[in-house]
């Protein structure tokens, strides 16, 4: 099971990097963990498919390191690198929407996978909210990429986030309702996605079967 590196979606790396990552998964103390964290973050910013699942490989490395030397060097490096990127997020967004969306996907995925004593990391709660709130602002709602990302993240981690800070989730949803109701010129797909996420949260972070049918039946057929 642990050998199925396909799980970690690292085929897109060059061979040398693949070897580095494979070693990091098994024997983290023998590799340069700073390099590993940089490789993972940089790939996540380029490749949205990777950023959706990068939390898994990070989780495995963190576990391996904790087991091997009860260290958390990799986690520290990863989080601090993530923080650096967070500080320049607005620049990133201006430069490349795709990179920005990848970043949000990545940080949310890390939030989802890495836990401290089975609880989400408090340090990431505000930053994740900051990112999602940015995606809910009017200028971002006109970008389908950003809306897609926003609702996907809320589907995945909305419930956990809300438990950590309900007030910020409320504020975020005020923005979403406003966008859905008041913002002119939104694509109908965007309105659909917004409506769905509004219902999703209203139903206790799930859709009842009728709602599910409404939103997804077309896809199934």
């Amino acid at each position, binding site marked *: 099971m642990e050998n199925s590196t396909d799980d970690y979606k690292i085929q897109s790396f060059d061979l040398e990097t693949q070897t580095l990552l494979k070693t990091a998964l098994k024997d983290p*103390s023998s590799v340069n*963990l*700073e390099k590993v964290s940089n490789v993972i973050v940089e790939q996540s910013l380029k490749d949205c498919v990777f950023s959706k699942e990068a939390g898994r490989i990070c989780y495995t490395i963190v576990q391996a390191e904790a087991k091997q030397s009860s*260290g*958390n*060097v990799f*986690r*520290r*490096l*990863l*989080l*601090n690198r*993530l*923080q650096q990127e967070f*500080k*320049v997020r607005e*620049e990133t967004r201006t430069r490349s929407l795709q990179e920005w969306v990848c970043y949000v996907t990545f940080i949310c995925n890390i939030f989802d996978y890495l836990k*401290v*004593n089975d*609880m989400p*990391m*408090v*340090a*990431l709660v505000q*930053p994740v909210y900051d990112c999602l709130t940015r995606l809910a602002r009017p200028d971002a709602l006109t970008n389908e990429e950003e809306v897609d990302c926003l609702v996907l993240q809320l589907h995945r981690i909305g419930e956990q986030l809300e438990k950590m800070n309900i007030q910020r989730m409320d504020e975020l949803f005020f923005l979403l309702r406003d966008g859905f109701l008041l913002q002119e010129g939104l694509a109908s797909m965007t309105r659909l996605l917004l409506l769905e996420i509004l219902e999703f949260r209203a139903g206790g972070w799930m859709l009842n079967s009728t709602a599910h049918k409404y939103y997804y039946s077309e896809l199934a057929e």
Partner: protein
Amino acid sequence: MSHKNKMKRSEARVGEEECRSSGPSRWSHSRKRGVDGSLRNNSDEDGDDWCRHASFTTPESSGPVSRCSRPTDWGSQVEDEEMRRDMHKDMQRYRRRILGPEVTQRERRASSGSSGSCDSREGENMETDESVLLRRQKQISYGKNTLAYDRYIKEVPKHLRQPGIHPKTPNKFRKYSRRSWDQQVKLWKVKLHAWDPPSLSSQKTTPNSNSSQELDPCEELDFGDVMDIELDFPTLSHSEHPPTAHWVHASSVTDQDYLGTPVKVQRTESPGGPDMV
């Protein structure tokens, strides 16, 4: 627009430098890992890249809150969070243990036998202040994050450790005065120094003693003296005010003469052992 970010970054840099100016402590040379987490190799033992973890309180500092108590980097924040949660788990475990009927009895007997100062119920004697416990835990982690500690726990298995002879980690859950606690930590770390890696110390102090590991240290030591000192050390967990004069003496002995050789272990195994009473 990019000015804002540059500003932020340079502010962060200033914070780092403040830390750095405190310089490497004398413990840093045997530290396993630097603050960036990378393994230290021997070449950078001078600690030019050394910067104390922002959340570490200096063991000697007097205030309960250090200047940079709230770390701003996510890595440290998460570590603090983890430490806090571990602490609460630890505390529950400890409470269960000391309040368990058998254990309480045993502890009560033990403590009344020695100093008599701890004969009240353990439950009431327990330190529960989170900030105190976290500070203490950091001091302990600091001491444990050394090559000497690794060597010690490897060389002396738990059941062979003798109170008063071998270093014993101070019990962070007991109520102690700030001064007493700090002194216990200090003594503990001085004792741990006996297990410093030999190569480091021989390079620095005695260049010719590469073979010091093979040499029987008994030949160079005045045994009786050291033993007296060792035995005069009160059991750490009970001592309110360890005798300072002895400590000074012992530390100078340990630092200059025996540094790097785990003399204490060898001594307990030495055939003569006339002073072992």
